[in-house]
């Protein structure tokens, strides 16, 4: 008990110089101290989002979202009769620092759950830590898939919940025959485009010369040449669309250049997987009207739960013009799922919650339900929206029912045979159905590879 109390004051503790010893003690005593602490101490919720550096633009609102959800939960009487307490750390958009901060949250602060991360590389960096220290991480952003960790719950979209339906929409509803895959040069666009290329060629028989792939550095600001190339690519007489996995900041100059070079959504629509309401707040959207985005939630969803959420958010931020977006909804779902699982399990103990959460179903903000699947991904509806001149999306199409997230893509040769199922007795994130063996965790190697890039 004494150790625990002291370890909650990291600074005093660090200065005492017995950091390593106590860390060890804390780890050993982990289970028992938790049992003692349970009755009086608040439940600790770690928030691992960048509040400074390049990713602050996207991640700050997610920190605020979790804090708002905690506040709401506390007003409703807390959880298991205990109050919730947010523990906020700032990994400062620095990928290795994410791992350090995660370690701090789990080993020193002993949080019961973490909500955090945005970029895939930061998630890869954190992965070995949460697996080693047996934490719970809720990851709220759409990502490239090809991963399923025992300790991570993926509440954002896997490629089959965003990219694949979006492309089917373009082919079936818009009649597109030529695709320019344009992305920022990092793991999410590269993997997603690999899946999409395979999907377009194998499933729809699109020829090689009708697919153009282009990568640009982070924060790319000079799009003249690429947009001119896209324009020429679209002038060959076949209906053409751009599938954009361009990340964050680079989108503004990209869209500005598109409109300046006279490319209109009616000629060459751009469908984006990383542009949401938040990103559009930095753009004059009048020239972008009609360009598309695929998400599992839009602020414009016509649903009472959504209106309540927006009202609460506007009140919480004190900003009339505050917008909500897809990763915020993912945190909303993730937080409620975790709370429900804790309630069901009657404890915040990680192993118990991890088992209890599979199958938990909570309402999403678009009028349906999200269920946690055994592969730690959730069910989501897929929505296609067109950008309006007020910075919002007009929903033009959606899947008839929710789609379950697929950790391992069916369109890539290596991953086709893998499944993830964390229920007993399988308990494996990459079970190969052909040779019947479990690959085991590769978190450490993957983290190393991701950080080396």
């Amino acid at each position, binding site marked *: 008990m004494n150790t625990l109390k002291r370890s909650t004051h990291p600074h005093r503790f660090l200065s005492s110089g017995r950091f390593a010893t106590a860390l060890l003690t804390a780890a050993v005593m982990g289970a028992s101290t938790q049992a003692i602490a349970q009755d009086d101490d608040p439940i600790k919720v770690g928030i691992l989002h960048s509040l400074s550096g*390049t990713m602050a633009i996207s991640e700050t609102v997610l920190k605020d979202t979790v804090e708002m959800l905690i506040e709401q939960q506390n007003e409703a009487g807390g959880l298991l009769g205990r109050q919730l307490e947010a523990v906020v750390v700032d990994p400062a958009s620095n990928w290795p620092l994410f791992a350090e901060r995660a370690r701090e949250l789990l080993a020193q602060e002993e949080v019961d759950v973490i909500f955090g991360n945005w970029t895939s590389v930061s998630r890869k960096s954190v992965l070995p830590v949460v697996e080693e220290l047996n934490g719970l991480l809720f990851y709220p952003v759409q990502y490239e898939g090809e991963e399923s960790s025992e300790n991570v719950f993926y509440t954002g979209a896997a490629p089959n919940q965003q990219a694949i339906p979006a492309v089917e929409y373009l082919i079936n509803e818009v009649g597109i025959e030529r695709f320019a895959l344009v992305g920022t040069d990092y793991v999410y666009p590269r993997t997603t485009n690999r899946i999409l290329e395979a999907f377009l060629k194998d499933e729809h028989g699109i020829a090689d010369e009708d697919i153009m792939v282009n990568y640009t550095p982070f924060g790319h600001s000079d799009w003249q040449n690429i947009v001119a190339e896209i324009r020429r690519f679209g002038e060959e007489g076949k209906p053409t669309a751009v599938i954009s996995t361009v990340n964050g900041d680079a989108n503004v100059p990209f869209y500005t250049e598109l409109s300046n070079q006279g490319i209109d959504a009616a000629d060459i629509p751009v469908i984006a997987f990383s542009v949401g309401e938040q990103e559009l707040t*930095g753009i004059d959207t009048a020239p972008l009207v009609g360009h598309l985005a695929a998400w599992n939630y839009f602020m414009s969803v016509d649903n009472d739960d959504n209106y309540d959420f927006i009202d609460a958010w506007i009140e919480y931020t004190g900003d009339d013009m505050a917008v909500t977006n897809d990763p915020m909804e993912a945190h909303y779902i993730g937080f409620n799922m975790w709370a429900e699982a804790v309630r069901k399990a009657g404890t915040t103990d990680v192993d118990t919650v991890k088992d209890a959460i599979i199958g938990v179903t909570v309402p999403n903000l678009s009028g349906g339900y999200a269920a946690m699947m055994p592969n730690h991904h959730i069910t989501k509806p897929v929505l296609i929206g067109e950008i*309006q001149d007020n910075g919002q999306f007009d929903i033009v199409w959606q899947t008839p029912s929710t789609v379950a997230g697929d950790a391992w893509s069916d369109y890539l040769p290596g991953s086709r045979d893998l499944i993830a199922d964390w229920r007993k007795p399988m308990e494996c994130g990459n079970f190969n159905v052909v040779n019947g063996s479990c690959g085991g965790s590769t978190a450490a190697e993957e983290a190393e590879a991701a950080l080396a890039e």
Partner: protein
Amino acid sequence: MRRFLSLALLCFLLLGATLTAQAQTDTANNSGSDNTGANDSAALELLEALDVESYTAKGEAITAILQSDDERARDWLQALLDGRLQRTEDGRFVLVLENRGRDWPVADVLTGEALGEMSRRDLERIGINNNLRNQLRSAIAVVDLYSPNVERRRTSAERLLGEVDGELVPTLDDLIEQEEDEQVRYRLTQAVAIYRAEAGEMAGVEALDGSLHPRSRVALSRAANSDDPIVANAAAASLAGIEQQLKLNRGLETLYFGLSLGSVLVLAAIGLAITFGVMGVINMAHGELMMLGAYTTWAMQQLLPGQPGLALILSIPAGFMVAALAGVAIERGVIQFLKGRPLETLLATFGISLILQQLVRTVISPLNRTVITPEWMSGSLVVNDALSLTLNRMVVLGFALVVFAGLMLIMRRTRLGLEVRAVTQNRAMARSMGIRATRVDIMTFALGSGVAGLAGVALSQLTNVGPNLGQNYIIDSFMVVVFGGVGNLWGTLVAGLSLGVINQVLEPWAGAVLAKIIVLVFIILFIQKRPRGLFPQKGRAAEG
């Protein structure tokens, strides 16, 4: 798309007669007030049909409007296309006249009567999707062919390129005969020729010879596969000629792209060429001074809502002043104590840059700010069908040259410039001649910083205005200054423009990522060979 056009044409043939009839009766029939009353209820019904969920139903409603003989049909369709056709809570259809800000002025769609301002919360827009947008444009294009307004006829004719089908051809042939405007006639002829070429007719192929429009090229390449060898050969020959022309245009376009990128580099680097090049101060916070200039533009636009152009012009002096003052504060507060210790200066100014970034994040917002591009800077200048130059970049290119010329003037023709050159060449000597070196330091640093502010104002038109703006340009700026030759403004200009062009020439075949790397490697190698850059300073000053 063709489907829409045929449909639109069909509607129009019905409408065409009534429109002319309308024009005749309009003058005679001024007393028909009860008539308009009946019209309005019919019109209301037409509009009512637009306010449905299904886009297919909306499409049908648009066709119905086109088929109706209401002379306001075009205005409604245009309003619908622009998203200005909206509905109030009590079901009245209104036209939004201006959709900026929170309250929008509106007018009644049916009567045209102004209804004052309304909150956007009380209005509901009639939404459309891309398919409907195409349908509307085609519909409006067909109606506009008969418009007395030449501009409208031009846009309409342009829209018809590659979208003509057999049914439309005789109508268009008639129109071409009647048309007085050269440009409209040219476009219409081309539109018909594209149809004929695609159908494998020799006349079409001949008419398209030399046309650079992408649609013509598509039509010719289809004709080149025609069964008739004569047509196929002729098409192939024209195609070869066109390809040649296109190559030339592509070259010009790349050159423009390069100069434009170069002008951004020059703008970003030229302030640094003064603080780093002339004074020898390594200022890592240079990028953040640019960021301040960009935020000044944003603040100006907030102060002057509805006048983005004026705000932008006023931002030029304001951005200069803000950045210059910040520069003076940095110089007085930190740099002057670190004179002659470049490593410490580097670290200290790097710290300042982080502080400034986080300050903006905390005080303003971590999110990017919207800076509006004024009307006269959006779009592009059309040179020919294959080459158009984007206006915002052209303005920035011009601005960079003006800033450069201004700086040259200051350095060469003013007393400040003379003093700056004297102090940098030999500080002790200059001081003994009665020049107050400290004052010159401050003024020089303010000048360099102010120019960074100007760069920020220009960049706000090209890229994100956010806390990271400066970071993205600081490396490039140093690169340009070092490559051009430290202390030489001409060097910075030449280096910036040539690096821009090299980058853009490489980009199409190497990709953006690799192009950047190649340029960097090139500069490293170049500096190995010529450590003093393109234009090294000569004389004893350079040795010092």
